[in-house]
């Protein structure tokens, strides 16, 4: 270790503040008990908000992103083009489980991970995107409000396999 680097005079100055803890002053002590948290969890698990109309918006946005990228007719690494496919999928991932579609969250999460690391959009990545899109569409249209059991597992594995084959090919 080169100690000279560490022994030089600090170059940056920063001001530190310890603001008053207003929340603590108002809330007091003791936290919330399990009964309150369980009751709140019941609200989350038993609400009846219909996710399908919102999911359809995200699915359509994702489809538009895929179609626009395909219409280019060439590879693109544009963050904007990737974002148009990725962002609606992030919403599907975030909201799926919250609205009783855990399989949508699972599929979308895998796709988000895939999109985060690919170099560009090309024919292969768009094919994979379409496969994920179709899978999520089926889950939502089929109102599959579970993890899909063995079929869900097989579906996720199949989609994951497509990603893995892509990664193996483009090491």
């Amino acid at each position, binding site marked *: 270790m080169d100690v000279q680097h*560490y022994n030089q005079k*600090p170059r940056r100055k*920063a001001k530190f*503040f310890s603001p008053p803890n207003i929340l*603590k002053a108002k809330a007091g002590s003791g936290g919330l008990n399990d009964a*309150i948290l369980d009751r*709140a969890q019941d609200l989350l698990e038993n609400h009846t908000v219909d996710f399908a109309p919102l999911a359809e918006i995200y699915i359509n946005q994702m489809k538009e992103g895929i179609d626009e990228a395909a219409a280019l007719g060439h590879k693109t690494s544009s963050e904007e083009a990737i974002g148009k496919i990725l962002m609606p999928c992030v919403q599907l991932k975030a*909201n799926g489980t*919250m609205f009783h579609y855990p399989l949508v*969250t699972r599929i979308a999460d895998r796709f988000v991970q895939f999109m985060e690391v690919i170099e560009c959009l090309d024919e292969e990545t768009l094919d994979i995107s379409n496969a994920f899109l179709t899978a999520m569409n089926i889950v939502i249209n089929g109102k599959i409000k579970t993890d899909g059991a063995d079929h869900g597992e097989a579906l996720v594995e199949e989609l994951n396999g497509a990603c893995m084959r892509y990664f193996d090919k483009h090491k």
Partner: protein
Amino acid sequence: MAYNLQDIKILLVEDNEGMLDLVKAVLKSFGVGQVITALNGDIGFEEFLRNNPDLVIADWLMTPCDGLELSRMIRTDPASPNRFVPIILMTGFSEERHVISARDEGITEFLVKPFNTRDLYRRLYKIIESPRQFIESESFFGPDRRRRRANNYDGPMRRENDSSQNDGRRSTTPLGDDAISPEDIEFR
């Protein structure tokens, strides 16, 4: 003895109305006295100016003004009534680069969706019981980004006036344990 959240005012900013209603219901069931809602960052900032809440909970992806822009306005706008207000950012993003960009905009806690009520409560509890110092430098204003404690760090502190020199503890620079703990990045 338990928390009494009746006097607490929370601003909740979320463009998905279903999610907005859900989170509001959860906060009310926690006993929070007042939950002010807004459907995007612009409206959220107007409500922030009008109500000066004790805590802000915002979604990241919103149009036309997202949760990061809202955080930036709260932390830096001269009209902001409380630049130190804790901000919890809700998002579907869990990849490290997104967490870092959120942290750099002055976010206090990061809540990955989907979440359960205990995830939300843990963030709330942490903000109440373990508030962080704020730092103002040339390029940053927000909660201290250095939260990971590394007992084996033997180098000098990065800043001459680093307060953590005074308490015998030393921090390292990456994301704090709490900012991106494994429980944060698992999805359900």
